[in-house]
């Protein structure tokens, strides 16, 4: 990792003043040891006209690995997982920023004992960083440096010239020029903005990080248009290089075994919600970009609570509870006496438990709620006997061929009296302005259904597994494309409780069919028909209205 700071001068204001400003003599190469390797300062050119200082940090990759390494079982260097081959020895990251502040600490503070008038003087400056990781691309580099008085040239570095189709890497080759800034200002800008662009830190962010930011940002950060982004990234807890020793690494290893990126597999928890709320508020959510998150998610929860209330449910399963937002909502309502959140992701459950503050919850409250790891691809006896189950924005995260297993696990095996299923209405996607045509709303959505597709699916389940179903729109209903979210409310037939041997045609290998399909009492069947025709009238009406619009 490497950067240069250069200046030009005149006989009256020689460029070599840079040596005084940086407290490093231009004719010597000096080495400074830092926690992660040796920093070298040297001057490739140094005369009155032109003087350039170079900072080269020789990263000791082993030290970096060992810092991040915990005591894994069997002495395995767990924390090395994502970093045995990594860019840190080459790219300009927070390591370089820390080296910069260590090697040029006086210069950064604007102190120069030998020539006290120098630090306050602006001079022509040129900073070059050949490999700067920039999450956000050249655009963000411009947006960050230009308001500070820099002229920016940020050339993207291609990933591999041999494979042009791979496109650009996340590195840019950066050149900054200015005539209006002091060396101290330049150093402080770099100290803050290098890790912001890299969006990763090699150390754990502690409380004094705020002080560091306030000190280095004095005089420029408060008025910076990207202040929010800079603040949140600088103080972020991201750690893309190594994972913490205490963290569950099993998923990471499975990704590794499959030559996949960790993020491909360990992605049950949205980065947005995992602690980057600040950035989300700043208007830059990473996923679910299109759904202004709070309102629709909230409306969905309200719709679920209303449907559960109508059904008279007290003991409720939240299947696919994620980070527990719905569980939290249900807990506030005393009519729900037992709430069980189930998710397949341990990481999501950990966050849910933190969100609910389970460890500090009063006994009475705590006795109402439980979080379980479970999977809807398998039947699970623990889930039997509940009043209702909610599958809110869950089914679309399953590959279609695996839906029958879920159908059986929920409707055939767990068999709650009421089942609520919500899922996006893909027709509505045209109303999300920023969603490119044909894109799903979320990277992990395996499918998104039209209203017709969803209804056909729900009706087939109801038919096979002994439920009645109604559909409820969630969110503002568009006359043409319907609501953003669609919800199906399933109610078990009166006779359904005995219908326990029912198996879906495709859930297991064998025993297909619904043996008790004929058991529905006639009266019930009639009611169902009436309800259905009412429903379909209603939906027809909606469709007509839609067409009229």
């Amino acid at each position: 990792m490497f950067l240069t700071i250069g200046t030009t001068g005149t006989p009256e204001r020689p460029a070599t003043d840079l040596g005084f400003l940086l407290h490093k003599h231009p004719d010597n190469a000096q080495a400074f040891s830092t926690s992660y390797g040796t920093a070298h300062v040297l001057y490739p050119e140094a005369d009155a006209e032109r003087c350039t200082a170079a900072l080269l940090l020789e990263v000791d990759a082993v030290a970096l690995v060992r810092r991040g390494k915990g005591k894994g079982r069997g002495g395995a260097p767990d924390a090395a997982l994502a970093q045995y081959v990594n860019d840190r020895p080459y790219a300009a990251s927070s390591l370089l920023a820390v080296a910069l502040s260590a090697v040029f600490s006086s210069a950064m503070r604007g102190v120069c004992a030998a020539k006290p008038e120098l630090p306050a003087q602006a001079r022509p400056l040129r900073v070059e960083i050949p490999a700067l990781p920039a999450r956000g691309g050249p655009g963000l580099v411009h947006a960050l440096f230009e308001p500070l008085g820099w002229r920016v040239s940020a050339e993207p570095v291609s990933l591999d010239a041999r494979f042009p189709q791979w496109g650009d890497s996340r590195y840019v080759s950066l050149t900054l020029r200015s005539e209006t800034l002091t060396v101290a200002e330049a150093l402080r800008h770099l100290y803050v903005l290098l890790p912001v662009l890299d969006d990763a830190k090699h150390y754990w962010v502690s409380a004094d990080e705020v002080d560091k930011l306030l000190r280095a940002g004095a005089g420029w950060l408060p008025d910076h248009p990207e202040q929010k982004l800079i603040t949140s990234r600088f103080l972020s807890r991201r750690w893309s290089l190594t994972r913490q020793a205490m963290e569950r690494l099993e998923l990471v290893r499975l990704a590794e075994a499959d030559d996949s990126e960790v993020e491909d597999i360990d992605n049950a928890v949205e980065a947005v919600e995992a602690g980057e709320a600040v950035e989300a508020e700043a208007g830059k959510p990473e996923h679910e970009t299109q759904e202004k998150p709070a309102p629709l998610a909230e409306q969905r929860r309200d719709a679920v609570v209303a449907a559960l209330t109508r059904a008279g449910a007290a003991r409720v399963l939240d299947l696919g509870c994620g980070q527990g937002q719905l569980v939290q909502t249900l807990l506030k309502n005393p009519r729900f006496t037992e709430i069980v959140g189930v998710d397949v992701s341990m990481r999501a459950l950990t966050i849910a438990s933190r969100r609910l503050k389970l460890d500090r919850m009063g006994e009475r409250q705590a006795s109402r709620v439980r979080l379980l790891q479970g999977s809807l691809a398998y039947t699970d006896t623990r889930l039997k006997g509940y009043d209702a189950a909610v599958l809110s924005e869950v089914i679309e995260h399953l590959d279609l061929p695996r839906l029958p297993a879920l159908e059986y696990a929920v409707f055939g095996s767990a068999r709650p009296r009421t089942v609520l299923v919500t899922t996006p209405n893909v027709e509505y996607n045209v109303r999300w302005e920023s969603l490119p045509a044909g894109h799903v709303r979320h990277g992990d959505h395996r499918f998104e259904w039209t209203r017709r597709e969803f209804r056909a699916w729900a009706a087939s389940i109801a038919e096979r597994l002994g439920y009645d179903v109604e559909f409820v729109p969630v969110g503002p209903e568009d006359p043409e494309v319907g609501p953003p979210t669609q919800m199906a409310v399933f109610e078990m037939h009166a006779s359904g409780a005995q219908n326990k041997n029912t198996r879906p045609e495709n859930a297991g290998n064998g025993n297909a069919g619904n043996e008790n399909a004929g058991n529905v009492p006639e009266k019930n069947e009639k009611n169902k028909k009436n309800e259905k025709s009412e429903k379909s009238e209603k939906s027809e009406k909606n469709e007509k209205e839609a067409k009229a619009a």
Partner: protein
Amino acid sequence: MSDTQASTTASATPARVLPVTDLSLVVLVGASGSGKSTFARRHFRPTEVISSDFCRGLVSDDENDQSATRDAFDVLHYIAGKRLAAGRRTVVDATSVQPDARRQLIDLARQHDVLPIAIVLDVPEEVCAERNAARTDRADMPRRVIQRHIRELRRSLRHLEREGFRKVHVLRGVEDVENATVVTEKRYNDLTHLTGPFDVIGDIHGCSSELESLLGKLGYADGVHPEGRRAVFVGDLVDRGPDSPGVLRRVMSMVASGDALCVPGNHENKYGRYLKGRNVQHSHGLAETIEQMEEESDEFRAEVRTFIDGLVSHYVLDGGRLVVCHAGLPEKYHGRTSGRVRSHALYGDTTGETDEFGLPVRYPWAEDYRGRAAVVYGHTPVPEATWLNNTICLDTGAVFGGKLTALRWPERELVDVPAEQVWYEPAKPLRSEAPGGHDGRPLDLADVHHGRRIVETRYEGHNRVAVREENAAAALEVMSRFAIDPRLLPYLPPTMAPTATSHVDGYLEHPAEAFAQYARDGVARVVCEEKHMGSRAVVLVCRDAETAGKRFGTGGGPTGSLYTRTGRPFFDDATVTEEILGRVRTAVEEAGLWSELDTDWLLLDAELMPWSLKASGLLRSQYAAVGAASGAVFPGALSALESAAARGVDVAELLSRQRERASDAAAFTEAYRRYCWTTDGLDGVRLAPFQILAVQGRSLAALPHDEQLSLLDRLVEHDSTGLLRTTRRLYVDTGDAESVRAGVDWWLEMTGRGGEGMVVKPLGALVRGEDGRLVQPGVKCRGREYLRIIYGPEYTRPDNLARLRGRFLAHKRSLALREYALGLEALARLTEGEPLWRVHEAVFGVLALESEPVDPRL
């Protein structure tokens, strides 16, 4: 009913001997001062005795604080419960003169299925009072307390047996108490001292001729084994079959002579009740037995009655390693004695439901079984005897035209003879329903994720592979969110260990080590297979969608699957998968392998290329990124250093070091580039199969690699689409220096041209060492340049190599073998037609183990 041993011994002879069962709850009954503590101290170990006074002290600091009595007894019951659960005899030292106090203890004994035994110390009031007066802490105990105790004791005496005590010893007077001795008796079911060897024989049901054939096959001559083996019958000797008296005669004589043991089945039990004159229904084949026994003498019928009456519900044998009973027994009932233990041993457990044939639905106790002892039982007819959680059902339906099966113990070998005919029509078809009603039922979470889990395999040294909970949790997430339909995922490939670390200069891995390692393992001939530069792929290809539906239970649609090491589909688009399957299918067809292997599906282990096809995300974000960053940074850094040097600044050493690093980084970039090429649709995609894992009815995991490769060569030959690629190979004799040198040269040449390396495997594929344990099925020797993308661009620098040579391989090797055993097990279960959940259990285990912490670079 010999499990109950009620006896009242009340005579007043000087030297009383009190038999006390080794696992029992002994309740001392006597007034305060009657000498219970002294008696307990004299006859039992101090840790066996819990006294209420001691517990009172524990909770209140005062052994005589009567207000603490309630809490004290809670503690006493708790400790006693823990001891009984652990199978330890417990003596309760409290007055226990009130029926209510005793009832709680009897309940406790029942709860833990042990015998409650009462020992009554009936000592005169004066003696008690005198003793109490001599003790400072009890000196002020009112006389009326002792009087009340004695009154209550006397009133209780007659009722003790009726209260539920299975032995009652009453000691009258001081002398009787003083002179008594206690002897420990074993339980009747405790035959742990018998170590066999045994031949456990399944349900016979009057199939006398088959029994004689089986005994003959096992080596018995007229009921006696020349090597002193002992037969153990799991019961159901009678009913339904042609000759129940013949079977009884044989078994009874073998039991009488000590050549056999026998536990009762529900059918004997019912016949026994009939013989006692009870009113029983003559259904389920009892009528046949009654009729056949009519021909026999009264004397024989009396013998049978005594024999049946004397049968013990189950036996614990061979140091506790083997439990034999009729209908199975959960671990907490092993060696226990209670009505419900006997009932479970005879009838098993039912869910309370009945099935479509009107028969009770049996609770799948064996699915929950996690005990150390092997449980061998019968009762539920199954087509094949198979191990499940260390239990095995030997009822293979001899009377229904199946076979009569025996298990050799400790060899764990199955021996069977076919039924001579269908002697009795079954009420429902014989199905692999037991153990545990798994007629193709959908997968249940408990099949895979249930605390720490043990998956059993048939491979020595890895009979019980443990899966930790946290690993199962991760596997559950991947299996649920990313994997393909489990029915089309019958196998996952095991991880492979690298060869031992080399000390050859400049090398971390070198084939010489691999050859030496196999030579040490006693493997004379190995095959070196070129390591393809792609991603591991498993291919399941069926003849058509109908076959896939029939064999794997999918509903039409896919004709197979193509998935990664973690069970994910290679291609999001199912039509691409089908296109590849179609090409493989055509090659199989053309090569004539369907008929030659007598199958309509094949499971292939393969490598799919290029690597960039699947790993492109990883390649770009990690490997290419490093290449890009290093490529961008070095030109500037080097020229700055050169300029500084030109100015006379002393940077020579730094400069030369940076030049080396720049060249290492360039070599790194070259290394990963070899694994990337662009593909367009299927153009450029290559599939190199290197093993046929299984076909219908047969696992081919043990087929030698030369035969494997020649089958696969034919497959490749018959592929006209250019998809399939052959695997280059070289055979090496590990004991022949020249052959070994040729192997090394082959590797040097291949990796010198940028090849990834090779895998060295024993030619025999599935090979066991002298100790019977599996030998590593292969080790990888990776090329020097390839390892750059594993260990980083600069790994070849001498100081780095020195450090890397300290790498730790033991865990990786152990993991590789455990996963291999599970993979083999999955194939065996699949090809033996076991239900989905059994196959999935092993497959899931492989995935879970993959998330164990092990150095990912190995």
